[in-house]
C-alpha cells in the first residue's frame, strides 16, 4: 500500500469515526422554521424548552422565516429544491402542502401516525394536510373568514347581522342614512391584487353557488355564476357600499379602518378580534362576528379556511424527533398555550369549549360553529399557479377595466395553457 493510499484511508476512517461519534454522543439539534407569532406573549420559546426538558440531549433551534407568505414560500422552494437539509420541522401555510408533497419534499406521515391521532382535529384542516390519500403534516393553527360587525350601530337601528349580502347592502344604506357621517364606510374587505383577493372572490363564488375548481379538475365549472359573483363585488364598490380604496385593501388596511370606527362591516380572520378588544381600541366592546353572508338566491355564506401546518422535511436526519416535536407543538396543552398567549386559533375543536380559553375569548364557541362550516381553498399542488394567474384578472374585473365574463374567460385560458404542461 502506498503512503498516499494509506493516508487517504486514514482520513476516511477518521471522518467516519467522527460522524459516528457525533451521532452517538453529541447533542442533536433540531431546526424549526416558523413565522414569528404575534400576540401579547409569544408562547413558543416556553413550548420548545418543555420539549427539550422531555428529550435530554436534544436542542431545538427556532429560526424565523421571512415576513410575508410569498417570501416564506420562496425561501422553502429554494432551500428544498436545492437539497439543503438545513431544517427539520417546517411551519407551512396550508395551501402549500399538496405542492410540497407532490414535489417530494415532505415526509409521508401516514404510517407513522396512530389510527385515531387525527380525529381530534378539524376535518377540513386534516383534509388540507392530506394529498393523494396520504397525510403530510399536522394541523397547527386554524383560520376562517368572518363577518365582523358593529353591535352598537346594528342595535341602534334594530338590526340583526345580515344573512345575505342583499340584506347587508340594505343595512349599510339604513345605518349610513341615519348616522350622516361621511367618514363611515359600509363594508370593507380585501380587494388588493394578492392572495387575499382570491380568498374574498372564492367566498363570493361559494355564496353564489359555484367555485374556481370543480372536484373533477374543471376550471370555472360555471363561468356565468362566477362572472355574476365578480359583478356583484364590483357593484359593492360602484354603489359606495364598499369604499373605492377596497381595490388596494389588504387585511391590515381594512382591519385598521374598521378598528378606527370607520366601517360598519368587515371581512377578516379571527386574529382581528383580539385587536378590537385590546385596551385603547375605539371599538372595544362594540364588535361581534357572524357568518359571512350568503346570497338571496344562492347559498348560505361560508368563510374560507386557512391556517398553518407542521411538516417534516424528507431530508431531515432526525425524522422521529422532528415528528415528536410536531406532536408536542400541536398537542392540546401547546395549542391551549398558543390560544391564550397569541392571537391564533386552535385546530382542535375541543379547545373552543375549553373553560380557560373561553374565559379569555368569549366568542370561541361561535367561532367553532363558523370554523366547522368553513370551506378550504382548492386543495391542489397547483394552487399557487392558480392563484397567481387569476389575481390580475379578478383585480381587473373589480376595478372595472375588464368585464367580469372576459376576466373569467381570460383567466381560464391562461390556466389551461399552464396546466396542460403539468397535468
Amino acid at each position: 500500500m502506498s503512503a498516499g493510499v494509506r493516508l487517504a484511508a486514514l482520513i476516511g476512517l477518521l471522518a467516519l469515526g467522527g460522524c459516528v461519534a457525533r451521532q452517538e454522543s453529541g447533542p442533536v439539534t433540531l431546526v424549526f422554521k416558523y413565522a414569528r407569532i404575534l400576540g401579547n406573549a409569544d408562547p413558543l420559546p416556553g413550548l420548545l424548552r418543555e420539549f427539550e426538558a422531555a428529550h435530554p440531549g436534544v436542542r431545538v433551534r427556532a429560526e424565523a422565516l421571512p415576513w410575508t407568505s410569498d417570501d416564506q414560500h420562496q425561501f422553502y422552494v429554494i432551500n428544498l429544491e436545492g437539497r439543503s437539509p438545513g431544517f427539520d420541522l417546517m411551519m407551512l401555510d396550508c395551501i402549500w402542502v399538496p405542492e410540497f408533497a407532490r414535489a417530494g419534499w415532505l415526509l409521508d406521515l401516514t404510517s407513522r401516525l396512530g389510527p385515531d391521532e387525527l380525529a381530534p382535529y378539524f376535518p377540513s384542516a386534516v383534509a388540507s394536510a392530506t394529498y393523494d390519500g396520504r397525510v403530510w403534516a399536522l394541523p397547527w393553527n386554524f383560520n376562517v373568514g368572518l363577518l365582523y360587525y358593529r353591535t352598537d350601530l346594528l342595535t341602534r337601528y334594530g338590526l340583526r347581522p345580515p344573512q345575505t349580502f342583499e340584506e347587508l347592502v340594505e343595512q349599510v344604506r339604513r345605518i349610513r342614512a341615519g348616522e350622516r357621517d361621511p367618514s363611515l364606510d359600509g363594508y370593507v374587505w380585501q380587494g388588493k391584487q394578492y392572495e387575499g383577493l382570491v380568498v374574498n372572490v372564492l367566498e363570493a363564488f361559494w355564496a353564489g353557488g359555484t367555485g374556481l375548481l370543480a372536484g373533477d379538475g374543471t376550471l370555472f365549472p360555471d363561468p356565468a355564476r362566477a362572472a355574476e359573483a365578480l359583478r356583484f363585488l364590483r357593484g359593492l364598490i360602484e354603489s359606495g357600499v364598499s369604499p373605492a380604496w377596497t381595490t388596494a385593501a389588504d387585511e391590515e388596511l381594512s382591519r385598521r379602518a374598521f378598528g378606527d370606527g370607520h366601517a360598519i362591516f368587515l371581512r377578516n380572520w379571527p386574529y382581528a378580534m383580539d385587536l378590537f378588544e385590546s385596551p385603547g381600541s375605539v371599538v372595544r366592546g362594540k364588535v361581534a362576528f357572524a357568518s359571512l353572508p350568503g346570497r338571496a338566491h344562492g347559498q348560505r355564506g361560508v368563510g374560507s379556511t386557512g391556517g398553518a401546518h407542521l411538516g417534516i422535511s424528507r431530508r431531515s436526519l432526525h425524522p422521529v424527533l422532528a415528528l415528536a416535536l410536531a406532536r408536542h407543538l400541536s398537542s392540546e396543552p401547546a395549542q391551549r398555550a398558543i390560544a391564550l398567549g397569541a392571537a391564533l386559533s386552535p385546530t382542535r375543536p375541543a379547545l373552543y369549549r375549553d373553560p380557560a380559553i373561553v374565559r379569555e375569548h368569549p366568542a370561541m364557541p361561535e367561532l367553532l360553529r363558523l370554523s366547522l362550516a368553513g370551506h378550504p381553498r382548492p386543495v391542489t399542488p397547483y394552487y399557487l399557479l392558480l392563484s397567481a394567474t387569476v389575481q390580475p384578472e379578478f383585480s381587473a374585473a373589480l376595478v372595472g377595466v375588464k368585464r367580469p365574463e372576459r376576466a373569467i374567460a381570460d383567466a381560464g385560458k391562461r390556466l389551461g395553457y399552464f396546466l396542460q404542461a403539468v397535468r
Partner: protein
Amino acid sequence: MTSREAAARRRALLCVAPTLIALGALTVYPGIWVIWLSLQRRIPIFGVSRFAGLENYAFLAVDPRFWSAARTTAAFTLGSVALEVVLGVAAALAIQGQRRGRRLSISLLLLAWAMPAVVGAKLFEWLYHPAAGLINVVLGYPINWLGDPGVALPAVILADVWRTMPFVAVLCYARLLAIPDDVYEAAQVDGAGRLATLTRITLPLLGRILLLAVLFRTLDALRAFDIMFVLTGGGPAGTTETLTVYAYRALFQTLQLGFGSAVSVIVFALVMAVAWAYLRLLRAGTVAA
C-alpha cells in the same frame, strides 16, 4: 511581433485570466444557462422537463399579460427617468444657487438615496394610505392612489422619483462645481441673461454627465422590481406589473423555470440593447467633443 512582444502578450493574458474566468463563471455561464432554460418547459417540482424550442416565446408573443408588463415597464422607465432628470437638474441648480446650507441640502438629498428601496416603498405606502395618509390629508380629497388603475402607476413612479432623483442631482451638482467661474463671467460681459446662461452654458456643459446619469437610471428603471412589489404587488388589474415582477411571479411563485427564464431573457436583451445604444451615443459625444 518580436519574441519579447509575444512574451509580454502572454504575460498580459495570464494577468487578465483570473478576471476573465471569474466573469465567465459568474455571468456568461449563468447567462447561457438561462437562455437554455428558456427553450424548455421546466417545472422541477412537478417533474416537468422537456425541450420546447421557442414555445415559451411564441406564447409570450400573444400573451396580453406580457405585453401589458412591457408597456408598464416602458411607461415606468420613461416617466421616472424624465422626471428624475428634470427634477435632479433643478435641484442641483437650486443647491448651487444657495448661499448657505449647501452641505445640509446635499445630506438631505442623499438621505433619500441611501434609503433601501423597500423602506422607501413602505414609507410611501403610508403616505398613500387612503384615509390616514399624509398626502390625502393635505389634499383634503381622498385619492385612491394604489387602487385606481389610472393612478397607481403614476403613484409608483412618484415614489421611485423621490428616492432616485438625488442620484441625478448629486452627479449634476458635482459637474456644476467643476465649471470655472470665468466662463460665467465672460458670459456676463457678453451680456447674456440668466436664461441664456442656463441654456447656452450650464445645460450643454451638463450634457455628458446627464447622459451617464440617464444611462444608469434607465438600466435601473428597466429592471425595477422592489418599489412596485411592495406598494401594489403589480396591481390593480396588473397595471403596475413590470417585466421583472412578471418574471419573478413565473420563476419564484409558480416555479415555471422555463417560462420565467424566457421573460428574463427578454428583460436582459432589452437592457443590453439600451446600454449599447447609450454607449454609442456617449462615444459619439466624445468624438464630437
